């Protein structure tokens, strides 16, 4: 019973997903690693959320055992030449009890630059040997939380060492304790820094590769009466807000044809307005029966036209009929007599 997705920026990204049948993705836990690399250039948050939605719609599998999944996109900033990602968690509702929170990020192996062995003076012109690069450098994930509009770097909430992956892939980390503690302290702005210990490496990533957070929760208020309106009935923030339009506050931008009609002015008769225009080519406007517009299983008896009208009608029908059939005068007289 579900129709295609609303035409919105997400549909393009999500359509890409629908067309792409990656067997690996359709298996296993969404929070597990996936093999989408940069070449996948899909909006991972949209892809992930759509997968959870489809899983629920098709199989009724409740996401994370709860009834709510919120995704949070990163806002990327450079601090001391390092990329720091900020997450605004303020849209979480008080009634939403956090079950798990996962941090999803794309990581690649980072090989340190090859080291040069000091060349001996005497063998100056001998080619200096390059030492083989050492093991890939370890990465750290640092999480800080801050309340809105504080200038400080925030309170360090957690640090995780990352095992460098053999190749570039998306990984997920459970950050439930970090998010729960930050929320308890009312600090709903979270920052994450992927630190590999080397300066200048925090080069900003394309937004498609930016990390994101998923929070699986159980909304206790969802069984309250009218809960769907609490979250989905909104006043259209994108509308220009011209009060003249007279449209209902949460009316969508594209006016839809109303299925009912408004009576303009006092009702005079039971006719639907706008229907009394007759097609211009109608031969007998005054014979034009409105009820012939509505297919009606019960045909009303039509009044018999007078004798003269009948004859005239027959002739008209005759004149208008196909030029092929015509009769001589004698036959016509006989027919008339009959």
């Amino acid at each position, binding site marked *: *019973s*579900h*129709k*295609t*997705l*609303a035409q*919105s920026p*997400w*549909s393009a990204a*999500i359509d890409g997903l629908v067309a792409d049948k990656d067997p690996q993705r359709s298996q296993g836990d969404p929070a597990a690693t996936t093999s989408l690399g940069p070449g996948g250039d899909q909006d991972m*948050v*949209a892809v992930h*959320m*759509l997968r*959870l*939605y489809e899983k*629920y*719609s098709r199989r009724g599998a*409740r*996401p994370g055992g709860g*009834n*709510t*999944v*919120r*995704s*949070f*996109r990163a806002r990327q900033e450079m601090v001391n030449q390092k990329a720091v990602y900020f997450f*605004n968690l*303020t*849209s979480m509702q008080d009634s939403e009890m956090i079950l798990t929170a996962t941090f999803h990020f794309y990581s690649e192996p980072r090989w340190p630059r090859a080291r040069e062995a000091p060349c001996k003076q005497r063998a100056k012109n001998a080619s200096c040997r390059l030492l083989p690069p050492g093991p890939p450098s370890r990465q750290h994930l640092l999480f800080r939380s801050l309340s809105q509009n504080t200038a400080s770097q925030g309170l360090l909430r957690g640090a995780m060492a990352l095992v460098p992956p053999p190749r570039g892939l998306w990984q997920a980390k459970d950050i439930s304790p970090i998010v729960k503690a930050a929320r308890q302290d009312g600090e709903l702005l979270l920052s994450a820094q992927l630190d590999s210990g080397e300066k200048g490496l925090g080069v900003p990533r394309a937004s498609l590769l930016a990390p994101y957070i998923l929070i699986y929760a159980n*909304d206790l208020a*969802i*069984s309250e009466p009218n*809960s*769907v309106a609490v*979250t*989905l*009935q*909104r006043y*259209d*923030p*994108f509308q220009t807000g011209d009060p003249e339009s007279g449209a*209902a506050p*949460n*009316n*969508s*931008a*594209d006016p*839809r044809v109303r299925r009912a009609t408004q009576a303009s002015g006092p009702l005079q008769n039971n006719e639907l307005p706008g229907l009394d225009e007759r097609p211009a080519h109608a031969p007998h406007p005054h014979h034009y029966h409105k009820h012939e517009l509505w297919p009606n299983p019960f045909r009303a008896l039509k009044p018999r036209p007078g004798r003269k009208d009948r004859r005239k009608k027959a002739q008209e029908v005759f004149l208008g009929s196909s030029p092929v059939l015509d009769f001589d005068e004698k036959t016509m007289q006989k027919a008339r007599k009959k």
Partner: protein
Amino acid sequence: QWDEPRVCSRRYLKVDFADIGWNEWIISPKSFDAYYCAGACEFPMPKIVRPSNHATIQSIVRAVGIVPGIPEPCCVPDKMNSLGVLFLDENRNVVLKVYPNMSVETCACR
């Protein structure tokens, strides 16, 4: 509508979110089969309308007519299904919520 039964039963209704102005922030589904309940709950009520005991007694009291002004029981949703909705929140982040009691599975007189 012409051949729907008079007795309380489930009727078809497809809700298109665009009709109620929510389509701008709802990503999926675009529409869903909500259904609704309508029909009579008069005495004697057939088993198919699954009346509660209270509804049965209320219909008898109404039929007897000694106590005036007692309406017949109402035809309301009995079993209902949930619906997962994918939508954008105020910060344009994608949210998935599973709302209970969004579509009617069975109707009953209550």
